């Protein structure tokens, strides 16, 4: 019973409410109250309110929001590390909410792994035993799990640190151990809870590249929680922006930057260098009467910044091509106004 064309994760109408009598809120009229009022009436806080989303297999799905928006709770609800108050969760066809404790353990052991913001390493064990911890829990014999852990040690680039204690490692190295531990049991889904927000900016870049590389090599489905918009844009194929427990907007990076759903999202994406996110498809327009169409052609997926050299080489409008067919033109003025965030003359997002 896979309801929606084999989605890796399917979430429908998910609620998580903290507070007294939490379970009665989702199905009552209280559910429609704004957060402040709900708190005043019942003393409850809705950390996740009525979230519906579906993650495709092999996708990197980013959940983004400020602290307190419910994103960490949402990701914990997926494997019931936090028990949801209402809603449905399906992971690769398995109904998570109906799972028995034993089934849930099997799910956590073999199919879904998690990487944590504060790493969650065991300080009394060496690196190798930390990586092998998940396998140990499963009951894999010592020799085999250590062999597997050694493979992962070199996969995350920590050769030679097998016996080091976690507290002797830098933050970036610790998170590599956390990543290796999550990968050790070959999960179908990896959950990341702000994994890099405790790291220095430079290390963070490295780790993001590492995740991209792993995703390319292993192809695991990933759900990535972050409060850092640039991280979300860099990694996410699709991004869900959360506020007050609900999803405000769900879409590709381009959609978020190009058409923010409300002022909240707009404020978020205001400082994003649009030239690096928006593509020509987003800003191209119909040619004006008498405009020449023999200028250079670029694919519609080209990011604005990458179109700049071409535009510098010619005064003619650039023809935007999608699937071998011209869909519109952009000229220098269009590029400049798109990058500066002013309304484009074309405003054509057909």
């Amino acid at each position, binding site marked *: 019973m896979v309801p929606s064309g084999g989605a890796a994760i399917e979430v429908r109408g998910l609620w998580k409410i903290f507070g007294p009598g939490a379970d009665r809120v989702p199905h009552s009229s209280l559910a429609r109250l704004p957060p402040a009022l709900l708190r005043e009436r019942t003393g409850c806080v809705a950390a996740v309110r009525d979230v519906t989303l579906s993650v495709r297999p092999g996708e990197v799905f980013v959940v983004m929001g400020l602290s307190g928006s419910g994103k960490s709770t949402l990701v914990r609800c997926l*494997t019931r*590390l936090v028990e949801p108050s209402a809603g449905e969760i399906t992971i690769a066809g398995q109904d998570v909410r109906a799972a028995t404790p034993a089934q*849930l*353990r*099997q*799910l*956590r*052991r*073999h199919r879904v*792994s*998690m990487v*944590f*913001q*504060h*790493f*969650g*390493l*065991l*300080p*009394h064990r060496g690196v190798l035993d930390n990586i092998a*911890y*998940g396998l*140990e*829990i*499963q009951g894999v014999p010592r020799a085999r799990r250590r062999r597997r852990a050694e493979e992962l040690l070199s996969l995350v680039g920590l050769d030679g640190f097998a016996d080091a204690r976690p507290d002797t490692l830098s933050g970036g190295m610790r998170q590599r151990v*956390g990543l290796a*531990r999550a990968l050790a*049991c070959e999960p179908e889904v990896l*959950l990341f809870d702000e994994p890099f927000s405790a790291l220095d900016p430079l290390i963070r870049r490295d780790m993001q590249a590492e995740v991209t590389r792993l995703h390319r090599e292993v192809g695991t489905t990933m759900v990535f929680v972050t409060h850092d918009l640039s991280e979300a844009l860099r990694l996410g194929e699709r991004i869900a922006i959360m506020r007050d427990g609900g999803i405000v907007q769900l879409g590709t990076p381009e959609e978020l930057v190009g058409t923010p759903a409300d002022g909240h999202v707009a404020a978020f994406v205001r400082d994003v260098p649009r030239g690096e996110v928006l593509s020509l498809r987003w800003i191209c327009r119909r040619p004006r009467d008498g405009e020449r169409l023999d200028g250079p052609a670029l694919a519609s997926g080209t990011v604005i910044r990458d179109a700049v050299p071409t535009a510098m080489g010619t005064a003619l409008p650039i023809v935007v091509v999608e699937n071998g067919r011209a869909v519109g033109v952009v000229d220098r003025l269009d590029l400049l106004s798109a990058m500066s965030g002013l309304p484009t003359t074309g405003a054509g997002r057909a």
Partner: protein
Amino acid sequence: MTASPVRTAPAPPVLSESTGVPAVRDRWRTPAAAVVATVAAYLLFRGSATLPHDDEAAPFRLLGDLREWVDANRNASPVFLFLVNYVRLFAGAVNDGLALLLRELGWAGTAGLATGIGWLAGGPRTAATALAGFCAFGVLGVWPQSADTLALVLASVLLSLLLGLPLGVWAGRSVRLRRLLDPVLDVMQIMPTFAYLAPMVLFFQIGPAAAVVATTIYAIAPAIRITALAVERVSPSAVEASASLGATRWQTLRTVHLPLARPTIALAVGQTVMMALSMVVIAALIAAPGLGAGIVTGLSRADVGLMLPSGVALVVMAVVLDRIVTASARSAVPARSTLVGAAALTLCGVAASGLLGNGFPPGWTLHLAGPVNEAVTWAKFSWYGVTDAVRNLTTEALLNPLQEVLTGSPWWLVAGVALAVAWRGAGPRNAVVAVCCLLATAPLGLWQHTMETLTTVLVGTALALAAGFTLGVASALSPRFSAALRPLLDAAQTMPSFVYLLPALALFGASRFTAVLAGVVYALPPVARLVQDGIGAVSPSAVEAARSCGSTEWQVLWKVRLPLARGAILLAANQGVVMTLAMVVVGGLVGGGGLGYDVVSGFAQRADFGMGLAAGVATVLVGIALDRITRGAAGRPARKVSRRFPGKTGKKRIA
């Protein structure tokens, strides 16, 4: 834009003047009126409704009858047949087994074993400490008593840990159990050691078995509490990571909770050992064998020479046990060579035991009683001027007037004043509980003795706090002073409470002042340490900010460090009160009077058993009342301060 400040600016100063100045006057008006009213009431009603003491009061007779009934039905009632008697047999058997083992190993064998364990736990230094300690037992001529005490301690610690550690682990993971246990443990921890003994006699009669049960109960509180704290404080992210990987509860416990909590759990073991040691000594009052017996006899005869060897042996035993436990908390799994070394040491000891025989060679023993008593007599006579002046000054200036006021006032006046003070300091709930506890001593027939004990406790606490506070502040401000003081405090905190009576008795003889002094010395180290740590923990950035404004050191101390350390200082006061109370009650043995004396005579004479038991209950009630008041004040963070400051800050903002 400019209009609004012009319009609002004049209004607030008027407001602050109209509320600010009278607010200050108001703050003093009510307490001043209360003081005047209290004094007037005292002068008017002095001598009426004083509830004087009566040795034959009805509650005492009732409790005496209860004992008669229990003794008559000990072998008939099912509660005794199937529960109490088995507990008694079991505890006795554990103790007898250990005592037999130590006796069979003999002095040399036990010394070898202890040295080996010391080697395992902390290497050569700890081993040497253990060996020196056991030699000291022999040289002091108290090896057989030391062995008995050691057996009692080991038996009680074993039982405490067997029950306490699992319960602590469970309580650390279950909030519900924690909530259930917390109030019980609270009461257990403020209960003076003395109060445990009387009910033990009732159920388990006297002797080593009762002593083991009493000690087990007394020492189990820290085992549970510290273990629960250790398990609770295990990094939640590690626990969550373990759960996210699909670990069962048992797997998480085994691989995350226990290893991460291990150092703190070792601390719990150490605490348990220390508590057991101090209780085992006091259990001499219910006929437990060992070092305590010598001390109790010595105290009752005021014979310092008689009890000094036992006292010194006790301190040595505390130090040895403390060293071994702390060292084993730090060490990892021992290497093979260490194991071999430890085994060799033990075997050496056993072999030597074969050569020397079971006891300590009698020729090597020092006989100290004579010279010590001569020295004590000399000290008493030559320092008589000073000691007598100190004692009389404290007694005449502090103890007597206060006691006269407390025992001479009508009970309702004392209760009313206590209620008012507690209400102001600790809030209505704590105040009501505290006063109820205090009043409950009246129907027990012990109001007057409670007031006498309260006098000594109040005076002792005041002195202990003054001294401890000074030491604590001084060592917080001067690292050099702190470095000098720290080893002293460390040593003082490992000593069993009884030991403090020794020097006090030697210098001041049997009197109420001796009990107060012992209480002050006993409570001083934790008070000083808590104050020092509290001030030391004040955020350096706050201190730096104050200095950057040009504050003098005194201003930094008064305006920043002390207010920010308020919680720790009030906690110190709480500790000081509870510890002084415990000691003052023990001081009943050396002429302390009050409830402590009732407890002691309850053990000594069967006819007074009822009074002793009631006095035990009354000490617990006094303990709860004092604890509620002091802890309640600590638990109300700066409410008074916030009430006081709005006016000021408001004024500043406007200026």
